């Protein structure tokens, strides 16, 4: 099982970089251009300059050129059922692209009672006339023009920045419904541009909503409908340079608008990485990570965003906030970074961040373990955490999710592979006596130098064996991680066939993990029943992160809404109940998605009255006129 999938071992930097790129491309396959050298260019916010095509950067100003306006991700990548009724994933960007997924149709029909005859197609085109006309602040506009910072009040641009990826947001878009949208979009090119914009906004009392990658799932980007001022969406996507790399201290200074995949790619070219890989890393931005307290799947080695950040620069209505030095730790009162991290765009715009970087790992290896049941799997993860030997990533899927992963297996090319698969299944279920309706799978990712990885791998598999776990190969592991990147695309497919769903997460102490998983899943099923959902829902979970004292748990929930008059409302009620259940079972309000507006109502219970008061007083000082008026968090 310890076969070497990716070779390597040589210290030749270029080779490592190439290999690393291949790995990332394994699940991302973004356009890899050779000429994306690191720019340390001074910011010159001139119209002519900003129009220069940014080769190697993923996100153009006009996002609609490459991305869907009413769904997840790239326009060219999506699931569909071809003429033969087989599921297929289009495009060329992903491992799964261009492949047939034979099991998906049966799984969808079996799990949701969905039917290919019953379609719910989305509104194909964005009709600009359906968008509210922009409320423009003339004086602000005049002065903004004089700065030369590009802006737009084109309806498409505005609609694109009016939402994240909550179910209700996407559902409304598919129906061609738009609520309050920003009145204009500005694209600052650098820190100084942001300073100017915020000064003007304060001067003219304009509401500013920072926009990074647009991957929020907390209604954080929704414009408050009661906002009467002109709303400016401040899109940081053009602030996407690595300004410098300090190899002595292993830090990199980066503009906050850069998206995850660009950051990793550019650093890889110099032989470095940040190791911060949230599931949304293709599209989410550094500034967004800071503003929501993001977490990456490899946090066991590299840490979460709060561990990675050395320095932050943020523009607020009161001015710029930053620390005066880059000491690795300071005892200078409460850490001001912690006012910024998790502020969710309510205090200002993060413009530049200094981050830790690490030399790229020499060797990477996937793995997977099958457990007879979820209880054993959790016990194993707990033991791994106790011994502090968690691999870069370790995730445990429950049985439903294991089946789901199975359904996403692409068509196998040879009879031999399918024969092998059959043999494996036989071995696990018949010979080892695992119940196919109870077994569950942990996926693993090891990283480091080769020898240590192999040693580490042995240690983890030994622990797993104590809990009845059987090694189940690299393929299963890798497919598990690939799933992470395509699952959001799958939701769009579901929505074409009456199936809506979403995921949400929490963090919880170890002793509560099993209880919370069982109870929340059961609550979802019960609530669906009570709310009149006609088909049994998919209610599944996985443990995605381990800590010394607890774990992060992800829930996936989807159902077939045929027969319901207001499916989104039902969905929201169920999600609300599920969150209550999470809180009642000792789970947190959020591990890394943030609070936004979706979970605001529980904030007071979560951090106490005094806590809310503290946060409020910071807001009142930093932004007395509520310029950053997205109304998240409080």
């Amino acid at each position: 099982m310890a076969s070497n999938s990716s070779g390597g071992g040589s210290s030749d930097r270029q080779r490592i970089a190439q290999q690393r790129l291949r790995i990332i491309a394994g699940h991302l396959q973004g356009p890899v251009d050779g000429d994306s050298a690191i720019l340390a260019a001074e910011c010159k916010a001139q119209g002519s300059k900003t129009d220069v095509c940014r080769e190697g950067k993923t996100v153009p100003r006009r996002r609609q050129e490459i991305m869907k306006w009413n769904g997840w991700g790239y326009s060219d990548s999506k699931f569909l059922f071809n003429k033969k009724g087989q599921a297929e994933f289009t495009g060329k960007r992903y491992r799964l692209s261009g492949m047939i997924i034979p099991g998906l149709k049966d799984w969808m029909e079996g799990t949701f009672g969905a039917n290919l005859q019953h379609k719910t197609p989305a509104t194909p085109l964005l009709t600009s006339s359906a968008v509210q006309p922009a409320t423009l602040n003339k004086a602000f506009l005049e002065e903004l023009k004089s700065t030369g910072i590009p802006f737009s009040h084109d309806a498409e641009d505005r609609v694109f920045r009016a939402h994240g990826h909550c179910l209700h947001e996407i559902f409304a878009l598919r129906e061609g419904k738009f609520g309050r949208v920003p009145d204009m979009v500005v694209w600052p090119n650098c820190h100084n541009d942001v300073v100017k914009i915020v000064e003007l906004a304060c001067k003219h009392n304009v509401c500013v909503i920072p926009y990074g990658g647009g991957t929020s799932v907390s209604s954080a980007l929704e414009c408050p409908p009661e906002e009467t001022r002109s709303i400016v969406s401040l899109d940081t996507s053009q602030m996407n340079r690595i300004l410098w790399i300090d190899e002595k201290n292993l830090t990199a200074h980066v503009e906050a608008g850069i998206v995850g995949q660009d950051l990793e790619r550019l650093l890889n070219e110099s032989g470095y990485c940040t190791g911060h890989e949230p599931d949304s890393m293709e599209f989410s931005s550094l500034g967004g990570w800071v503003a929501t307290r993001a977490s990456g799947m490899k946090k066991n080695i590299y840490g979460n965003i709060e561990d990675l950040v050395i320095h932050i620069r943020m523009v607020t209505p009161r001015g710029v906030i930053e620390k005066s030095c880059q000491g690795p730790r300071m005892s200078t009162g409460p850490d001001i970074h912690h006012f910024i991290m998790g502020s969710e765009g309510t205090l200002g715009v993060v413009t530049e961040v200094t981050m830790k970087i690490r030399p790229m790992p020499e060797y990477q290896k996937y793995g997977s373990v099958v457990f007879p049941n979820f209880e054993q799997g959790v016990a194993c993860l707990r033991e791994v955490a106790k011994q502090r030997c968690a691999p870069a990533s370790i995730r445990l899927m429950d049985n439903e999710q294991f089946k789901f992963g199975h359904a996403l297996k692409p068509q196998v090319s040879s009879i031999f592979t399918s024969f092998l698969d059959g043999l494996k299944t036989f071995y696990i279920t018949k010979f080892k006596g695992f119940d196919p309706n109870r077994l569950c799978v942990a996926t693993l990712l090891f990283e480091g130098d080769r020898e240590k990885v192999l040693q580490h791998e042995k240690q983890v598999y030994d622990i797993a064996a104590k809990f009845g776990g059987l090694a189940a190969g690299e393929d299963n592991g890798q497919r598990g991680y690939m799933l992470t990147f395509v699952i959001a695309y799958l939701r769009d497919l579901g929505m074409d066939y009456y199936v809506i769903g979403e995921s949400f997460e929490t963090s919880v102490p170890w002793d509560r993990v099993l209880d919370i998983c069982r109870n929340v899943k059961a609550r979802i099923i019960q609530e669906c029943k009570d709310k009149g959902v006609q088909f049994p829902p998919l209610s599944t979970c996985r443990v995605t992160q381990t800590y010394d004292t607890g774990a992060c748990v992800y829930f996936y929930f989807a159902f077939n809404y045929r027969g319901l008059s207001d499916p989104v409302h039902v969905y929201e009620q169920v999600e609300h109940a599920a969150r209550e259940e999470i809180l009642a079972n000792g789970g947190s309000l959020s591990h890394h998605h943030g609070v936004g507006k979706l979970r605001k109502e529980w904030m007071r219970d979560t951090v106490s009255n005094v806590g809310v008061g503290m946060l409020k007083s910071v807001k009142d000082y930093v932004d007395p006129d509520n310029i950053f008026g997205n109304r998240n968090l409080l």
Partner: protein
Amino acid sequence: MATEAIYPHRDPMLKKRDDFEDMLEERRNSSDLRYALRCYTPVLYKGLAPCKASMLKSMVLQSDQLHHVIGQVSRETGRAADDVQEEASAILEEMAHCLQLSTVRFFAFTLSKVFKTLFRSICVNEEGIQRQAIQEHPVVLLPSHRSYMDFLLMSYILYTYDIALPVIAAGMDFMGMKFVGEMLRMSGAFFIRRSFGGDKLYWSVFSEYVKTMLKNGFAPVEFFLEGTRSRTSKSLTPKLGLLNIVMDPYLKGEVYDINVVPVSISYERILEEALYAREMLGVPKPKESTSGLFKARKVLSEDYGSIHVYFGQPVSVRSLAQGRVNRCQFNLVPRHIPRRPSEEIQSFVNDSAYRLVRAQEENMVLKPWVLLASLLLQNHHQDQTAGQKRGMVLEELTAQAVWLRDMFREYGAFLHWPDHVPPSEVVSSSLSLHRGLVRVCEGRVQLAVEQGGQVKPGEPHSTVTPEEELLSQAVIVLSCASYRNQGLHVFLRPALLASAINAASSNLKQEVFNSFSFLRNMFSNEFILCPGATVQDFEEACYLLVKTGALQVTQQELLVTERGQRTVAFLTSMLDPFLQGYQVVCRFLCEEATENLTEKQFVPAVRKFIIKHLLAGRLRYTEVLSSDLQKNSLAALLRLGAVQKIKAAEQGTLKVNKVMVNSLEDTLGGRLPTQKAVGARL
């Protein structure tokens, strides 16, 4: 708001009740042996493999909670942890059940024989049994407790319907009967000490044992909410200890939900009938012993009519707790560390307990005899005062019973009155079943209390003192009262209202409400009255009386209608013995209580006082002699602060606030208006 959701306005008439099926019918027609040996394959919770008793024990001994407490006890007492662990193990050994199918089969066989001789039928609502058999969640069975029979009967029924056998919490006193104790253990009983107040270790072993069985769904857990057999057939104030324990796994998120099933077992004739009456009159209860049980064999030769067992709608603990309990309170302390339940949880468990007891009451099947006993008792007391010819004319009794039957039905009682049989036959068959309590002579029906006592020939008259004669009459009266009590819950609220109307100085709604609230408060140790539900109860009472045309409610006033007089009179006299009884107790405390009256001396002393009054003819209700009533009234006075317990060296003495007791007595007697402060405003 929350209370309203818990006590919705009931209209039990609207509720469809399941049909009954006689279990004994099949037993009379086929082999008991084959039945006892038949294939028993109940559906198990979530397809779980049955758990061996030994495995269960080791799970308990290895639990986090027990480990914690053992460590704590060892630190506090300085004993070695192993030593404490051993003690825990011994406690568990003494407590644990060891359910064996062979013993169950033995019981299935013998009980079939016994039941067939004792009872005409055992009627069970099969639908209800099947309802609780769908074990989506762990199940807790809560039967009412009127007889020793109860728990054998429960297991017998579940075995018959091929449903997972429960484990049953039983009092330690059974263990006194060596052989029988072990038999019961093997049929699923586990034994708990009656009191273990301060014993942390005992409590911990016990609660962990129950929770382990429940959480894992090894078997339904069964216990008696009332804690002990009700000697009066009134439901007893629920005990909260076990209910707290079984709700804990839900509150702490260890299970998704728990289904609690109230089960109502009603006996047409209670085996322990006379035994209970004697016990309440001060003849001490014989210690349970195997030989005692065999002596009880003579009961086998008698006819005890039928039993009705009704499995109520399962109540989800989750839905009970919805909006009542914030489960986040367990987030900050490890769940295995035992803590006193918060006030929020205590009040939640208390309210739930009342709700469940009320559910038991509502589903209790009432036999015609309950109506007859009520009527005959009232008549008995009226005769005493009026000095007319004793007893009731049979035809009149029948007519009144029919009137009462219709009233019961309108109040939503679960009355089992065979409609296809003429009322006169129903009445006479009832009377003949209870021929020990009633006598029919010259067409008149009366309680079987003979003037001058039943003197057997050859015995000299003088051996019977008036006191003994009184007590022997009281046995009959109390037995009868216990049957009347079966139906009390049906018109308790209207009766409180009727008495309040009587006592109030005017018809003003507010005034009647004050009076109602006072009475309700006074009697809340006597009857099942959900705490904090005064307004709901008042409204329910008004609703029922208005519905039956006995009352008119205007904006300001409550007026008894012409045709309502009879109802109100009946209801008032139903409650009158209790009113009188409480007054006598108050009078006793004012007149005779000494400085150093102990709690233990209270019942004998008050009994003596009451006997004196009865013999002097100053009191007409013999039933006041019931120690149950006396204890309840003391509990009420303690609760109201009119009497205080003073902790002394050996045992507590009672300190009486004579002014307050006196004024309570006067208020009960209608000589003082109720103070507004007593209850909530309407």
